[in-house]
């Protein structure tokens, strides 16, 4: 079968949408502007700022409770070639959500995907991995080494 199963396609899309959302607005903007060609698109939904109610779990793993809200910006665009894309990103940066939506649409087009797969998605993912790794290295440097006084008996 040539067509990808629906679940797998959703998994893939989920992955790149997450990378786009978790990038810093400045990183998304500069990756976008570095592209050699950017397709024409029109807004299906102009960038809109709103909130998502963040839930936690009681005790860490139990039933849900409402922790508080976070600001989120969302957008939806349609490329002139017909693909539609959506963007969601924490914070209030309209450009971030709009570019995320445009990249999402491009990723769904066989023709346009190669232009952004490496230059935007992989690039942003690398930056995020590096950021996380740096933080994890700093954390590891603060790990406590316990030592115990060992009473030794002199031989003989």
């Amino acid at each position, binding site marked *: 079968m040539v067509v990808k199963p629906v679940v797998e396609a959703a998994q893939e899309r989920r992955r790149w949408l997450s990378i786009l959302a978790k990038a810093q607005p400045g990183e998304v903007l500069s990756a976008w502007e570095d592209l050699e060609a950017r397709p024409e698109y029109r807004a299906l939904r102009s960038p809109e700022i709103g909130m998502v109610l963040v839930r936690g*779990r009681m005790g860490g793993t139990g039933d849900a409770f409402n922790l508080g809200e976070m600001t989120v910006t969302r957008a939806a665009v349609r490329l002139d070639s017909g693909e539609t894309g959506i963007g969601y990103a924490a914070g209030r940066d309209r450009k971030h959500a709009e570019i995320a939506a445009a990249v999402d649409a491009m990723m769904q087009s066989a023709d346009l995907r190669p232009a952004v797969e490496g230059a935007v998605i992989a690039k942003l993912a690398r930056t995020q991995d590096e950021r996380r790794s740096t933080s994890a*290295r700093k954390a590891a440097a603060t790990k406590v080494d316990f030592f115990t006084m060992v009473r030794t008996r002199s031989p003989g």
Partner: protein
Amino acid sequence: MAYVAVKGGERAITNAHRWLAEDRRGDVAIPEIETDQIREQLSLSVDRVMSEGSCYDRDLAALAVKQAGGDLPEAIFLMRAYRTTLPRFGASLPVETGQMAVRRRISAAFKDIPGGQVLGPTFDYTHRLLDFTLAANGETPLEGALEAEEPQAYPMATIASVFAHEDLLEPDARTEDAPAPFDLTREPMAFPAGRDQRLQALARGDEGFLLSLAYSSQRGWGSTHPLCAEIRLGEVAVEFVPDELGFAIEIGDLTLTECQMISTYGGGIDTAPQFTRGYGLTFGHCERKAMSMAIVDRALRDAAAGEASAPCQDEEFVLYHSDNVEASGFVQHLKLPHYVDFQADLQLIRRQRREYAERAAAMKEAAE
């Protein structure tokens, strides 16, 4: 008798606000502080404002701190007011703190917790001596954080998972098809409160109030004798299901602080002795708050068990008074004109004094 409208003061108010703005700016010979500087360099103020303002947005919280001139409860009020202006897209999936990219994770109860004791960026073990190099103009931090060769591995085991096989720690209830949790921003406080309502109220609650309640509980006002089983600080992804997609995507990473307090429970006829737990979770790095929240959560569970005797175990007392926007609103409304109340009190007290004088005179006359 009708209300006598008191008008005026408009010019006075405008001028007072202009003066306030001038005071907030301070000496103009000193460069103006920028919100970016507040976000980066007063990040713990920002965290408290996001946490109690109940809205995660570092830039907005930094702006609120600046606008409030550093008065954090005022900044929290500004955040709460702003959030009412935005539409809500929906609710996230519950964040999975077990998956946290941990920067700090300690267990004061269990030295050998798998993954180890990771101190992270902490004030603990500092000497609390003023560092005058920070006051020297232009002095920048001495050295950056050290990076180990091997990064800390995630996810880190939680204290609950470590003892799960022995059933030593009370497990968290997970209900199939649980109804949507109570939402204080849409429904009024109701009693007896479910734990979902309580945790939401505590998460928005005033750090100082919860800290003092937790302290009172430790000192014997209530039966909690907690141990700090785990504190973790780090980044957790938030997942949301957009209607147009129908599957969950991550919409960002949040910095969260989580605290697990445990205390021993002797068991009952049907229940074996176990550690029971209190839970704290906050936006940002708010460790004192997360710990206090966990202790108060545990103390309030006594109320559910009908063992309440101390203030921290009284859920109406705690939940009705923990919100600092409501509390400061009610206390500070006393600054608004109460001219009519005072007139009524004046009349009453003058009449009472007259009657008192008449009684006293009559007594004196009778005695003579």
